[in-house]
């Protein structure tokens, strides 16, 4: 067990969840913001067996055999798309990828029309990434099957936050069911443009962690402290006491105008070097959702540090988390006992 690990709340270790479909009474996964604490823990726990399966040489489970999953990515992605594709395939589903670059979206079709088209093809789940905040929710209102948010603008990226929580739980040696009570996490980087930051703030604070965020003022969203985080502009101060340091890249593609003078200057103030890492707790762990800009927000010695860096482990848990989300969200369609269809409005 990790020496400075957090102390899970006693109630979280009971792993008692509401029965059947009440454990996760949502049709879609559009954001961590829609989830209660126990629902986050439920998804984490559901991912545990998939972590094990993924380490076997035989990785197939045929739970979703016969189902069709569409990965509709309106924004470029490599790792998230691949992760969802592998997750779907390991569960035995037929997985189809739609890239915006090769789709009719480029021909002027509206997002709603695209959504209706996907819906008419009778997908059993649709995974969506889109450059605009709220786009996934808009599509979810229009289609009949579960929708998973794979990142919408600067709003949310829920599966990333879930895989980060699971990675931390494993790295800290915490058993299934544990929350992250008392864990001190510092998130540093382009908070303003980051959906990963928002989802992680929601998830980590819900799980009891103490979250600090650090960025230059121009990259810090207004009134972010209302989300229950401490705000820092000085990285060294933000690192003090941190048990987990989560680094984010500069999202140049979302910046209009200049937000920082130069990458070199950014590295000087906010780059995570081994020296800087020493200001955190002695055994602090380092995370990064990728893609990394080595030599800007994170030095290679840190990124590749065998004991401290969790970056490849995050990617590994990503597949398990996405398998869990796909499996849980398709239970109603698969008529899993206890998972009656949801009535009324989409939750």
């Amino acid at each position: 067990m990790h020496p400075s690990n957090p102390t899970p709340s006693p109630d979280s270790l009971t792993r008692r969840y509401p029965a059947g479909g009440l454990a996760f009474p949502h049709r879609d996964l559009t954001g961590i913001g829609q989830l209660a604490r126990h629902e986050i823990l439920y998804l984490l726990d559901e991912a545990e067996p998939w972590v094990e399966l993924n380490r076997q040489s035989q990785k197939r489970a045929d739970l979703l055999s016969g189902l069709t999953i569409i990965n509709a990515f309106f924004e470029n992605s490599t790792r998230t798309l691949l992760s969802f594709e592998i997750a779907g395939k390991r569960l035995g589903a037929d997985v189809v990828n739609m890239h915006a670059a090769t789709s009719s979206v480029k021909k002027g079709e509206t997002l709603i029309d695209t959504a209706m088209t996907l819906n008419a093809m009778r997908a059993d789940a649709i995974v969506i990434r889109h450059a605009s905040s709220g786009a996934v929710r808009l599509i979810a209102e229009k289609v009949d099957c579960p929708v998973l948010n794979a990142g919408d603008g600067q709003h949310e990226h829920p599966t990333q936050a879930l895989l980060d929580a699971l990675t931390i739980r494993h790295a800290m040696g915490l058993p299934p069911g544990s929350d992250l009570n008392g864990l001190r996490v510092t998130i540093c980087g382009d908070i303003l443009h980051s959906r990963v930051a928002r989802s992680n703030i929601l998830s980590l604070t819900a799980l009891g962690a103490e979250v600090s965020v650090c960025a230059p003022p121009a990259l810090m969203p207004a009134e972010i402290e209302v989300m229950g985080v401490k705000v820092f502009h000085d990285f060294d101060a933000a690192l003090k006491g941190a048990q987990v340091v989560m680094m984010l890249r500069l999202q140049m593609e979302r910046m209009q105008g200049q937000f920082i003078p130069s990458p070199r200057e950014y590295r000087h103030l906010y780059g995570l070097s081994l020296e800087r890492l020493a200001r955190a707790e002695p055994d602090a762990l380092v995370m990064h959702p990728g893609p990394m800009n080595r030599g800007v927000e994170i030095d290679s010695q840190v990124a590749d540090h065998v004991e401290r860096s969790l970056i490849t482990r995050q990617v590994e848990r990503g597949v398990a988390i996405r398998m869990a989300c796909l499996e849980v969200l398709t239970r109603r369609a698969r008529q899993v006992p206890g998972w009656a269809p949801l009535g009324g409005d989409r939750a």
Partner: protein
Amino acid sequence: MTPQPLVIINGRLVLPQGEPLAAPLRCVGGRIVAIGDDAQAQDGDSVFDARGALVTPGLVDLGVFAIDKPAFHFGGITRAALMPDQAPPLDHPARVRFAAQSGKPDFWVHPLAAATRGLEGTELAELALMREAGARAVSTGRRWIADSGVMLRLLSYCAMLDLVVVTHAEDAGITGSAVATAGEVATRLGLPSAPAEAEALAVARDCALAEMTGARLHIRQVTTARALDLVREAKARGVQVTAGVTPAHFMLSDLELVDFRTFCRFSPPLRADADRKAVIAALADGTIDVVSSGHDPRGPEDKRLPFADAEPGMAGAETLLPLTLTLVRDGVIDVTRAFTLLAGNPAALLGVNAGRLVVGAEADLAVVSPDRPWVVNSDKMAASAGNTPFDRRPVEGRVLALWKGGARID
């Protein structure tokens, strides 16, 4: 065609001053000719019995984005100043002339000339020629002129021409592509946002330039406490500045944005609740002079999109009057001031002889039941699209009859 002489009896006249006056009103040749005892019906007059309802000036809507007669008539609006943000923009005398004729006879359009070519904010448009063609004022559109030198020359030129300059107050260098006001809601939703102070900066600069040039400046929407303070101070110094607002900014705050409701995407965006309250205070103390609809009907192709990709604006003509009357019910203003905000002041800014019940004015009249209840229904609106954030809201105040130039509009 001259309309038949008209006498409205049993109405309570909303005159420019004082309490509503129970008195008849008579119109001949499209103008008000008598109010009170002189206004007796004569042989051949058409007589309308208002049955105790208010008789008011037809509303003058300063700053609409589309000519949408059914919606305007539903809302008691008889004249509207058309924003230059058309496709193509109203930056040419021929387009202004066409727009000025587009509503007649039962609705008058007063085009606002684009201040700069293409509304690009760089070269002045042919403002004097557009004035000849029927432009009643000049507008920067839904944009900010970033170059202060251009703005200075624009204001001094318009001071010479005695044209009001209608501006949009958002410092675009700060707002960029923002679609929300910086704060908790925008942060949680991950929406591109800009600080509310972008408005105060714009107001400060434009008031300073108006003071320097003696130009008449009308800031179409002032929506933040800081900017309203600046307008208040400028007025106290004698600067010829007036301010307007639309009901959205005194009815709603940025909390409405949760769920990414694109019907609440406006330009400027909805503000914090403290700013909404400051707008109400400014309506009460006279800092705000005009309430307009900003009518901009938008169909699903413009609104059923992710929030940041949707077009701003709302279909506001039908709800302008009842939402303004909520201020009367709440005791913020009296009914006389409500119609000064909705008709008298905008008519004066445009220099048209309407908007007030006085002898000699155009007989643009409405009979209004101020407390008749109805429910806004975005599916059944007179407007060409139902993009209202007030869907399902019960409101009070309905136009029972409307005349333009003494002729009844059915």
